[in-house]
Structure formats: C-alpha cells, structure tokens
C-alpha cells in the first residue's frame, strides 16, 4: 500500500496544505527544513528537499485547488515519493527524477529561478508552455505527468469529491442524460 502519511507530509512542507495555491516563499522555507521521516512507514523521503519542493510545486500546478481539493491537498507529493521508492525500478526512477530536473533547469534557463520558487502565476504560465511543447514528444515527461495526475484521481478526494465513484453501482444503466454538470466516473480503470 502507498505509504501516505498526510500528517508528516504536512510537517514536511511547513504547514502549507490548505492554501489554494502555494506561495513561493513557502517553498523557500521548505528548502531550509530538515528531512522529516515518515513515521508511519518508517521511511525517509526518497527525494531530496529541493526535488520534493519541485514535485510539490509541479503537482500543485498540474492539479490546483479549485472548488475541490488539489493534488497537494490530497497528498500527491508523498504518494509520488512512495511510488518512486516502492514501485519504480531503478531506471524508471532515474527517468522520473531526470524528467523533474529537466523542468527545473528549463525554468532556470528561462526565468532564472527553480520552478518551485516561481510565483503561482509564473509557474502556471511556464508549465503550460512546457507541457504544450513536451506532452506529445517527450515520453518521460508524459509519464511523469500521468503518474502525478493519476495519483490525484486515485485518491479518495480526487475520486469522490472531484469525480464520482461508486464501489458497488448495483445497476448497469446503459443510457443516462449527459449534462454540463455530469461528472466522470472515477475508478481503478480510467481508460
């Protein structure tokens, strides 16, 4: 099971959770904090502080809090860390970390700051352009994005507050109206 200990993650990023979008100085504070061991799982985070800040900012930019929780509120950064540690093999782990680093160095090159230290508006604008350029042509980036996004929709809030999930639907209703208010079904198979 994914070692998601939301509380230690909260501590780890200095009480940022709950903010609609995370201000840059919060990440700066985080970069100075010492590593917090996930007590429940008994693991230190796999990623270093700078990368954790990057993952957190990236997840927050991909799936921000709107009228429903965003990726950071549901613990995607810690889930991603656990996925790299518990699931990915060495070469894929390296590829995911390299894909993260590529985003950071592109941000440095273009805007002179690590991605996590950009303002919310700046990282959104930057990532939108980066995504448009790399989504179709850069498989490592696309996979990284798929993992972060999927961890959100696998989470209980992602599946039940943002989307709709029925573990046991009971009936099969082959035709129901589709309106602008209709939410997609969550589930283990999102294809």
């Amino acid at each position, binding site marked *: 099971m994914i070692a998601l200990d939301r509380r230690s993650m909260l501590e780890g990023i200095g009480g940022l959770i709950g903010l609609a979008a995370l201000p840059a100085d919060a990440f700066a504070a985080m970069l100075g904090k010492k590593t917090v061991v996930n007590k429940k799982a008994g693991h230190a985070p796999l990623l270093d502080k700078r990368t954790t800040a990057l993952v957190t900012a990236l997840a927050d930019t991909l799936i921000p809090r709107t009228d429903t929780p965003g990726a950071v509120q549901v613990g995607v950064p810690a889930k991603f860390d*656990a996925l790299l540690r518990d699931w990915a093999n060495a070469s894929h782990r390296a590829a995911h970390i390299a894909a993260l680093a590529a985003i950071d160095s592109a941000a440095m090159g273009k805007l002179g700051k690590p991605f996590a230290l950009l303002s919310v508006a700046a990282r*959104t604008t930057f990532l939108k352009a980066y995504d448009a350029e790399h989504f179709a042509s850069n498989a490592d980036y696309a996979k990284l994005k798929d993992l972060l996004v999927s961890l959100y929709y696998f*989470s*209980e809030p992602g599946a039940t507050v943002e989307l709709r999930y*029925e573990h*046991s639907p009971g009936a099969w209703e082959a035709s129901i109206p589709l309106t602008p208010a209709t939410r997609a079904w969550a589930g283990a198979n999102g294809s």
Partner: protein
Amino acid sequence: MFDAIVIGSGMSGGIAAKELCERGLKTLIIERGRKLEHGADYTDWMQPWDLPNGGGIPEEVLEKDYPVQRQCYAVNSATQKFWVKDSQHPYETPENKPFSWIRGYHLGGRSIMWGRQTYRLSEMDLAANARDGHGTDWPIRYADLSPWYDKVETFIGVSGANEGLPQLPDGQFLPAMPMTDGEKLFKGAVEKKFPDRKVIQGRCAHLTEPQPHHLELGRGTCQNRSLCERGCSYGAYHSSLSSSLPAAERTGNLTIVTDAIAHSIITDPKTGKATGVRIIDQHSKEVRTYEAKLIFLCASTIGSAQVLLNSRSDANPRGLANSSDQVGRNLMDHIYGPSVTGTMSGPNTFHRGRRPNGLYIPRYRNLEKDDGYLRGYGFQGGVMRQGWRTVANSGPGVGAELKERVRHPGEWSVRLAGFGEMLPNPENRVTLHATKTDEWGIPQLIIDCVHGENDKELGRRMLEDAKAMLNAVGAKITHETSKLHPPGLGIHEMGTARMGRDPKTSVLNQYNQTHDVPNLFITDGAAMASSGCQNPSLTYMAMSARAAYYATEFLKAGTI
C-alpha cells in the same frame, strides 16, 4: 479408495467434480495450489485509493518474478496473489518462439480470474477439421454437446440474448446487459454497411437475474463493479469457488486436497487401467498416492499434457495415453493482438455502473463463401465514454483547465479486438525437458509453438475488418496495432490431447475417454480438436459434464 479423482479444481475440474458427486461418486479433487476461501481471500473490497502503488506491482518484482504473467491485462497489485511466479514455475521456449503461459495455482485455478465470456461452438466449428483437412475430425457434433451446453449454462448462469445465428448457437440465457447508446449507433452503422456482420451484446457468466438454484448456493446479482479478477464476494460470476465446488460439496461426496501437485498417474500393468495419482506436497515435498476407480484429468491444457508425459513407464515409455504420439501436440491458442481504438460522435448520453461485459461480433468469414483463407475470427469490443485517465492523457493541458477537462465524461470511444481460430499443427507442442526439473523434481516443459501462415493471415484480415467497421460509424482511429501477441496470451490454450475417431491419431474418444486407458478422462482444453474462435471455457464445462455422465454410466455397467 475413492470412486473418482479429479486432478485440478479450475473451470473444468470444478464442473467434473460437481457432476461426479451429484451422480453419487465419492470424489477427490487434487489441487496443486493453496486453498482459497470464497470471499475471505478476495480483494474486491479495495477502493481505488486502497490499491497498493495505484495498482502497480513493483517493477523490479515484475521483472524478477512475473516476466510472463505481467503481460496479462488482469495482473495488478490487487490480483498479484492469484498469479504464479514465473521464477518458481519455469518453462523453456526455443529462441524467437515466445509462448506466454498465464496461470494461477490455487483452489479454483483460473476460474477466479477468467474473462467470463461464454459462447457455444457451432456445428460449423465441430465440422471444420473434416471440411478443410487440418487436424483430425471431431468425434462429436453440435447435437452431442447441445444438451450439455443447456445444462451448464443453466447452472452457471449466462447473461445474453438469443440471436438466431447458426455460427453462434443460442442458449439458456439470463437477461442481457443492455448496450450503451454509442454501441447501438455502432451496431446500426456496421450492420447497415456489412449485412453479413452482427454486432451483439456479449454473453458472460454473470447473474443478471439469479435463479433459485443460484441463490441456494449463496450466489447473488451482479453489482456491475468490474472488479471481477479480484474475486467476487457476491458470487455473481461463475467460478469454482462461488459455484461448482459448493454444489459438489453439498452432496457430501466431495473431498478436496490442496497443495498436492500431481506428479503422475499410476497404472496397473496387468489391466492397463489407471489406479491412482501420485502427488507431491508442495510444501513438505512428501510423496503420496491416492487411489480411485476413475480419473478425470483437468489440470489445464498444458498441465494435463505434462502429467501424461510424466506418467511414463516401461509399458508406456512415451507417456500415458500416448500410443498415438499426439500427447502434447497440436497446441493452439486464439490469434490475438490486432486491435483498433477510435473516437466517434454519438448521442449526448452517458452510462452508470461498470458493466463487466462488452460487445461481440460473431464470426462472419468463410461461412458460406470462401474468403481465400481458412476459418475465421470474431471481435470483442465496446463503445463507452472515455474514462478519466484517457481524457487526462488525450492532449496537453495543465491546471484548472486540465482539471475541468477531466471532470467531465470524454468522447465516445470505440474499441475492437479480434480473436481468431488457430489451426491445429502437430509441430506446435510441449515436451518434457531431458534434464531440467522444477523444485519438486518434475521435468520442466519445453513449449514450442508458433503461428502458421493462415494464422498470420487471419491477424492481418481482422485488423483490416476492424478498421473498416470503425470507419463505417465515422470513427476517428486513434490507435491500431497489427502485432500478434505471442501464442498463449489469448489464455485459451487448447489441443494437447485431442479428441478423435482414430486411436492412432488422437488421444481421446467421443466421451473424452483416453483411447488407451479406459478409466482415464480428460475434459479441459487439452481435448479440443480445433479451437473455434469463441472463448472456450463453456465448451470445457459442457465436455466435463457430459464425460462425467458417460464415465459414471460405464462405471455402473462395469465396462471400465
């Protein structure tokens, strides 16, 4: 001393044991794997957020222990315990001839994780070998199987609709699962453009409306969860654990021994009859023997061949029931791999529930006219709204915009995947390795199986046809593949102890009785003289029930 021993507790062994028990025989099931408890050992309780690693088995574990099993669509972190570790159960394949042997060793076997599609063979299928000369003629025809199909369908519960198609006979059905509006549109467009093709609702072994005999066994209505491969605590699809074994147990005639790997079948050199089964305890490695008057071998197509080949003796140096030299030969699997996905416009509607079933397009090639190659293929598929992950990955997008896109159901997505009939070929075979054994000292198998020219041609034609059908409904094709999966990955292995009329060229007679050993019957996929293109489990179950009837009659009459 038992009246009967059934080797294997899967799809075929479960029905064989039930029928033998119900006919009054004290029956022992020998299962090589561990005991599984219906309900308690399932993982259908896991919510999406409970799935270990979001459903992924650690990649290094997959590489080390599941390099073959991981190719199967149903292998994930919720079902991991239902698949064998390839590292523990090795077999060899010649270079450049991969074969994917997908299996699970536990009580109930693959009946726990099966795809549940349930179709009859037709007269055309059973006459195919006689018609074109490939393989040997089936010693039975549709009329021989039909009442047993009726009996098994009624018992297991099959959702479907009667269609009146000679190539896919109707049966005893519970209510069909309705089509989505996208599927109705697709059906209309395909049937208009191609009058010889029919798009029908899939037939599956799910209880859409349980009958009293289902409820008596503790089985309930399908909840449309599509968590089936994790085991169903509702018992809504047929499996040995939900259905056939409880029916066998309530007769008071059933004994089950798990963790008992069938090593070989013992025969009496004086009479030539089988007297028992030698097993190895999978944990203690202790060797034991169980005796019975009658033996049903239902260890799966490849497993049953292994048991026969390993039952070699001075009298039968080539293995038991193998005077024809056909044991292990004629290995088939459905031709599988070519598939097409597309998006299409359609009605402004959606669907609720996760229907564990799809569309089916029965075979339409080489029925009356000659299409220039042999046999044919059918398709499974469906038309559903794209799910969240497909929508999320459908194009670039970040932030609130991405979230808003994924929030809503996607476009209609239409998919078709072909299943083709593979010709029997004696050179496609399994043999025992001369020196290598598994950890129980049983010779490992060498599986040597490749697609032939006709098989490859079917693969090409099925892709062309699938694309033409998507075009008929104006779909935009987003993904297509012509690649054939390695044989085995259709998970419909068949043919290693084929039925036939002549003991010189076949292993089993018209009663699934071995020509050589009168009290030995084989009713799993090994018996298949040809493969049809339909999902085969129903036929194994019908043969099991039918053979159990004849075997019991022969036993009573004292002829075996």
